[in-house]
């Protein structure tokens, strides 16, 4: 896999909103077919990194190279729930780049959008209002938008927050599928245990703490540096049920249930 040209390559990257970077010393690469978990506390720079990848923020230092445009599954925003669009409308937004600006989506694009909704398991909810869908369904509609866009890089900003166990599993399977198709997937998450299942992890706390395969990378030292002093470690139960796994909670995140 390592011979494949990376989809994303960052080196010495620093990004921020003014002159002072809020995230610095970022050096990682995302290869086709890879799932990278982006870990870190709130305010640690996960969303800032995504904004840089989306082209909203320019690097203050270092380089950030992208081989393709990013598809994105953003965090839920109140204003989006009020939007007068159906699931199909949202999926169709992925087809904007493919046509001149004055053209309306044609039959082929509608078919592609319906096929994408079908792939994420929402074919029969295509005409439902986006805001009426459940949290997990909304995330999958946004994945469908990325599929219509045929994004080779897919960014998901804390897509599992607030989802029930079944929705989490469905979304995880969907991400695995995207990676098997050769897409690169970056997932910001609070859940360290979940990230252990992915190919590599990127630990951020205002700067890059570590990057590599989870087994070698997620040591206690790295986790302590990533989450600062406020680690909450729930005792791991050997051979325990899935609901009792080890969890490390970042500050101000007391509502997480496992």
């Amino acid at each position, binding site marked *: 896999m390592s011979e494949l040209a990376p989809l994303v390559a960052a080196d010495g990257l620093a990004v921020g909103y003014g002159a002072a970077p809020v995230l610095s010393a970022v050096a990682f690469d995302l290869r086709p077919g890879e799932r990278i978990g982006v870990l870190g506390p709130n305010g640690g720079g996960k969303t800032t990194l995504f904004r840089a990848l*989306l082209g909203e923020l320019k690097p203050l230092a270092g380089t950030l190279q992208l081989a393709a*445009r990013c598809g994105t599954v953003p965090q839920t925003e109140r204003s989006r729930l009020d*939007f007068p*669009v159906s699931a199909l409308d949202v999926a169709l937004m992925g087809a904007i780049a493919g046509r001149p600006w004055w053209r309306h989506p044609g039959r082929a694009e509608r078919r592609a959008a319906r096929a994408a909704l079908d792939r994420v398991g929402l074919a029969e909810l295509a005409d439902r209002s986006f805001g009426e869908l459940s949290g997990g369904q909304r995330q999958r509609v946004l994945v469908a938008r990325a599929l219509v866009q045929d*994004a080779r890089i897919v960014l998901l900003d804390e897509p599992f927050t607030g989802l029930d166990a079944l929705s989490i599993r469905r979304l995880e399977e969907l991400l695995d599928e995207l990676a098997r198709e050769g897409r690169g997937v970056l997932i910001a998450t609070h859940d360290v245990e979940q990230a252990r299942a992915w190919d590599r992890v990127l630990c951020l706390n205002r700067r890059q703490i570590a990057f590599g395969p989870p087994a070698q990378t997620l040591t206690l030292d790295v986790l302590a540096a990533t989450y600062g002093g406020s680690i909450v470690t729930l005792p791991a139960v050997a051979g325990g049920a899935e609901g009792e796994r080890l969890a490390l909670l970042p500050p101000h995140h007391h509502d997480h249930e496992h």
Partner: protein
Amino acid sequence: MLDAFDYPFVQRALVEVLLLSVAAGTLGTWIVVRGLAFYAHGVAAAAFPGLVLADGLGFSATLGAFGVALLFALTVGQLAARARGGHDSLTALTLVAALAIGIVLASDVFHSGANVETLLFGSLLAVDAGDVRLAALVAALALLATWALGQRWLAVGFDPAAARGLGARSPLPDLVLLALIALAAVATLSAVGALLSTALLVVPAATVRMVTRRMLPWQAATVALAAAEGTAGLWLSFETNAPPGATIAVVAGGLFALVALGRGAHTMYTRTRGVAA
């Protein structure tokens, strides 16, 4: 009872208000969905000093108003379209400054006197052929732009951060929207004035928003509602001898309140029933 519409000046006012309904109805939905209501109010108010200048110096009022409104659109509006919410205090400051400059110009420089009220609240019964032409032009542009750029306005409004990734990175469509809102605000000035422009531009769209869930029916119903409110307000103002701009604003505001109340009552009813069941 409908004798009012026998008079040519009322007929012209009716044509004006119907044309404005088409422009305001289509653009109003975009104003609401993109969170630009305060911007729309600001751009109309900002046109006021332009009107005073034009009135005092004797050049076209439309030109004066649109010049200032466009300036406002390119500065504050840019921020409004990019970052929802972050521009409110700037809009408010500019709005107050525009009104203050307009009043000072009117009272101390040009001694516009009685004209000020007309500029602030419009005079629908005194519109001329030029006003009607402008309204027709804005209506046509609003429909054309909605048809051509609506998909982008929707996609960018839905998820601004994703716009670049989706290949909709050009700021041009948003600039067109801002300029069109400025033009529409200027077109409504002669009918309802700088301070009541939102009665046509925002209130009907916000009213219909409460009962529709998709863009197309929302837009069609908003045009119809704006036309109905404009016609009713015009007739009512003629019968009661009240200023037409204010009457239209009262009708539109009253209906908005009724729909909001009705919806609130409906929600409460279904909720309590849900609990009981």
